[in-house]
């Protein structure tokens, strides 16, 4: 009788341990597998929808000045409206879709755009959040970015090349890092910025890793791919 109870308890503990191991495997491995596959499908769909004829075509000549980028209206909530590429993350890092909104369900599908921050190319702060671990971990290598590294954003009609400018580590409640002028919530923006946020340290939510970048150039799709894409 007592032996049976002890055995039952032992089996319970073993089961609990197995459950925890399984959960860790699911979170750290399986969510990556599923999310990478799903995110690749989403970007492929976007590229097809946009009819990317310029893909792979080198820019014809030296980059021109195309004037101010077009003003984009805020995308509908939950819609994928852009693709982000970071050549310095290496050839294994795939392109990632950018969704409107930063809810947990959207960040499983790609990178999330903070609603009502600037759209790509606009004056202000185009701010996005992404997973650093799990769910395809789009921003896994965010801490390895160095000033000058390109961050290339593609929309239906245009390419935007941002250059990494600075990084910082802040508390999770510091919403001012995604303000039009980062850390100056009341200032009027004059620059075209992009901000990336991810968790920090890895496997923790104690702080946030923040990367700021500034728009270097933009070009319409008809001008071909930006040279920065090949730099990685």
């Amino acid at each position, binding site marked *: 009788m007592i032996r049976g109870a002890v055995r039952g308890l032992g089996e319970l503990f073993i089961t609990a341990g197995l*459950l925890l191991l399984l959960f860790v495997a699911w979170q750290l491995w399986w969510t990556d597998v599923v999310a990478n596959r799903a995110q690749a499908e989403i970007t492929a769909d976007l590229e097809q929808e946009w009819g990317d004829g310029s893909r792979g075509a080198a820019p014809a000549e030296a980059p021109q000045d195309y004037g101010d980028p077009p003003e984009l209206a805020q995308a509908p909530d939950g819609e994928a409206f852009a693709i982000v590429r970071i050549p310095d993350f290496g050839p294994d890092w795939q392109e990632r879709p950018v969704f409107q909104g*930063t809810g947990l369900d959207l960040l499983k599908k790609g990178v999330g755009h903070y*609603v009502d921050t600037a759209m790509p190319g606009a004056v202000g702060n185009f701010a996005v959040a992404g997973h650093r671990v799990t769910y395809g971990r789009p921003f896994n290598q965010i801490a390895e970015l160095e000033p000058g590294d390109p961050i290339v954003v593609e929309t239906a009609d245009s390419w935007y090349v941002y250059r990494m400018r600075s990084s910082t580590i802040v508390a999770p409640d*510091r*919403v001012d890092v995604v303000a039009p002028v980062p850390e100056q919530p009341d200032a009027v923006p004059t620059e075209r910025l992009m901000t990336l946020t*991810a968790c920090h340290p890895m496997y923790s939510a104690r702080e*946030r890793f923040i990367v700021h970048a500034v728009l270097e150039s933009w070009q319409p799709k008809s001008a071909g791919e930006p040279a920065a894409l090949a730099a990685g």
Partner: protein
Amino acid sequence: MYALIWRLLPGPRPVKILLALALVVAVVFVLFEYVFPVAAPLVPFNDNTVGDPQ
């Protein structure tokens, strides 16, 4: 618990082994598809935004 399951599985030993494997696969599938996704938001490192998630 596991001994009881083993006894309840019908058939000769090879059949029992196959059934047990199928059970394990079914349990893992239910956990991966339905249980873990519900538990995931409770894990701290899934939070990447500043301010409240929208």
